[in-house]
């Protein structure tokens, strides 16, 4: 059983935010950006306090039993949720693609895992594909040139990419430029970045070179993990460019009255 893109429409339902462990600890303002955007759209948002992590770090390293223990906590935390939205293509892909594998032979949790899979959305696809919202009527305070880095799991497992471009494309004062090799991995890969640090570092260096060569001053991604990798590399190399989360840029455009 693989992720079925034909999830029931999330329109009119209360949203539970899965903020992701990384945003929780390192970038909580990105979580708040998501809340602000959803509330701006009149959507009721709750934050189940029992949430932790989706289990991906252990899963991708082969530790399925440990991953499953954490995934069960995810199922418990969101047991009352109608719709789950998360500002990460990678964590969304973990739920949508790997929970079916993880719980395939588990009579106790399989049904609940299937229910969770049917209500989970990545943030930009939730807005565009789930709700049909393509224009947030947002306006940035300064004209800014952006480029997209397509994070691997979101792009290749969930087909993401267009939704974020559509949303940002409709923001006033936002110009979108090209990033060469925007579809090539930044080298993060979770624990890969420390287990195979040299290889990950070499991949990052190519990404940093491409970012520095881009006309954009800000690179947009939908994953704070790739963001951490790329900003870590940019800062180490003394680059003035920054990678930022799509939710933060969109939320900034809503401050004030928008356009």
């Amino acid at each position: 059983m693989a992720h079925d893109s034909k999830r029931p429409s999330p329109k009119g339902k209360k949203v539970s935010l899965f903020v992701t462990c990384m945003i929780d600890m390192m970038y909580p303002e990105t979580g708040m950006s998501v809340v602000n955007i959803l509330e701006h759209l009149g959507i009721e948002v709750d934050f189940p306090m029992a949430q932790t992590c989706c289990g991906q770090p252990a899963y991708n390293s082969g530790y399925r039993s440990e991953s499953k223990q954490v995934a069960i906590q995810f199922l418990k935390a969101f047991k009352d949720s109608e719709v789950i939205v998360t500002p990460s293509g990678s964590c969304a892909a973990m739920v949508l693609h790997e929970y079916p594998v993880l719980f395939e032979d588990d009579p106790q949790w399989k049904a609940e895992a299937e229910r969770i899979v049917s209500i989970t959305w990545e943030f930009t696809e939730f807005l565009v594909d789930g709700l049909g919202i393509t224009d947030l009527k947002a306006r940035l305070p300064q004209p800014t040139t952006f480029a997209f880095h397509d994070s691997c799991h979101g792009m290749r497992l969930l087909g993401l990419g267009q939704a974020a471009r559509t949303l940002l494309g409709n923001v006033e004062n936002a110009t979108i430029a090209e990033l060469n090799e925007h579809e090539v991995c930044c080298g993060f890969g979770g624990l890969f970045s420390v287990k195979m640090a040299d290889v990950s570092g070499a991949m990052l260096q190519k990404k940093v070179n491409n970012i520095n060569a881009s006309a954009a001053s800000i690179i947009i991604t939908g994953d704070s993990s790739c963001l951490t990798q790329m900003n870590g590399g940019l800062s180490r190399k003394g680059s003035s460019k920054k990678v930022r989360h799509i939710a933060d840029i969109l939320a900034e455009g809503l401050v004030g009255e928008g356009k």
Partner: protein
Amino acid sequence: MKVESQNFIPAAQIAIRNPNIQEAVTTGTRNSYVKRNLAMSTPTLEHGEAMRQQAAEAKRRALRNLPDLLEKAEANMKANGITVEWAQSSQEVCRLVVEIAKKHNVHLVAKSKSMVTEEVALNDVLEAEGMEVIETDLGEFIVQIGKTHPSHLLAPIIHMTKPEIRDLMVKELGMTPTDDAGEMTKFAQAHLRHYFLEADMGISGGNFILAETGSICLVTNEGNGRMCTTLPRVHIAIVGIEKVVETVKDYATLTQVLPRSGTGQVMTVYTHMINGPRQPGESDGPEHVYVILVDNGRTNIYDTDYAEALACIRCGACQNACPVYRSTGGHAYGWVYAGPIGAIVTPLLVGMENASPLPQASSLCGACKQVCPVNIDIPRMLLDLRHDLVERGETSKIWDIGIKFWAIGNKSPRLFQIGGAMARFGRNHVLKNNFPGPLGGWTDYRDFPNFAPKSFHQLWKERQAAKNTNNGGANNG
């Protein structure tokens, strides 16, 4: 070939710090990747996807019926006058080739490009038996005179820059120095010509074996394959058992995607269908044609969940697309098959304990699956292999313990927040910009930001408390 895959991490580090490898591999892979993308989206991307799906299905069908197809292929090849041999191990392959060579009094062997002969280290055995062996594919020839190994499925010397190749040819062959690739090729052709004419035996691989017609199919670009399989008295095709497909139509389907995926060509320069030895009245062709069908661990894969890996048609597209391969080149993988497909088939063929770093050598970005002409789910298999490594206890203890603690901290909401607070304190107040132990790899290449002063959990709690205060405490959020 000796397996050195356990050495992946230090070997990768050496390759990453070698500017020649970086320049050569980056350029080579990028060119092929760009050409592949263009070829597979012409006239439309949908057309390319449809070709991939058809090719994937043709190979899956062949794999499902593999035992029957092998028997059918054997019968039809025999009917065509081809002698069919079966080899279970690399030793058996070498023994059979030596026997055939001795039977036909062979002294000089001309080889066309073949990865399976690299796999079984055939050249070493033939040379030990006193035969002269010459590689006639240009890249393989450079590999041979450089006494190294191919680093890519299609482009054996993708890791070398032009000046390196020039210097090697000057040193080993006495070529007059030139930087003109055309001149270098001409020199190699002239050098190789007499070997073709004088060779007693030609050895080739095989891209496909057609069960319904008993044909050996070869797709090549240099013409050397045709020379090796037609000029010498004896031709041996050494082919993995997974290369059998059912019909000519399947072959047509697969040769649509193979060159497009590998080199971006719609069609290779040469396409051979070999249907047996020279017949009475024919003016050329070998007197004897042998096919050695090689198992060498493949049936062990066939019986597992990894059987799909046998669908690989060795196009090299996953290597060109892989950001890890692009950074390390192929030699770091330590055996014949490098890149994403190598990270799967190497541990499966040579034993997990001899290639345990390879399944970890991926960020799981999925570019390999995206370009695979037969849609092998390489990332899925890498995940499964990593799981196997954990189950077999072949992971490092420090990660085993680390992940156990991580799980304890993440299955309890309370411990999650305590753990988060500790990590915040550690990062923001204790650690400098060089992390200790196994985490040190991170700060070798990048900075790590401080944790936020307050977690989202805390911010949310405060937000709800403020709301409740504003609402006179009537609403508990």
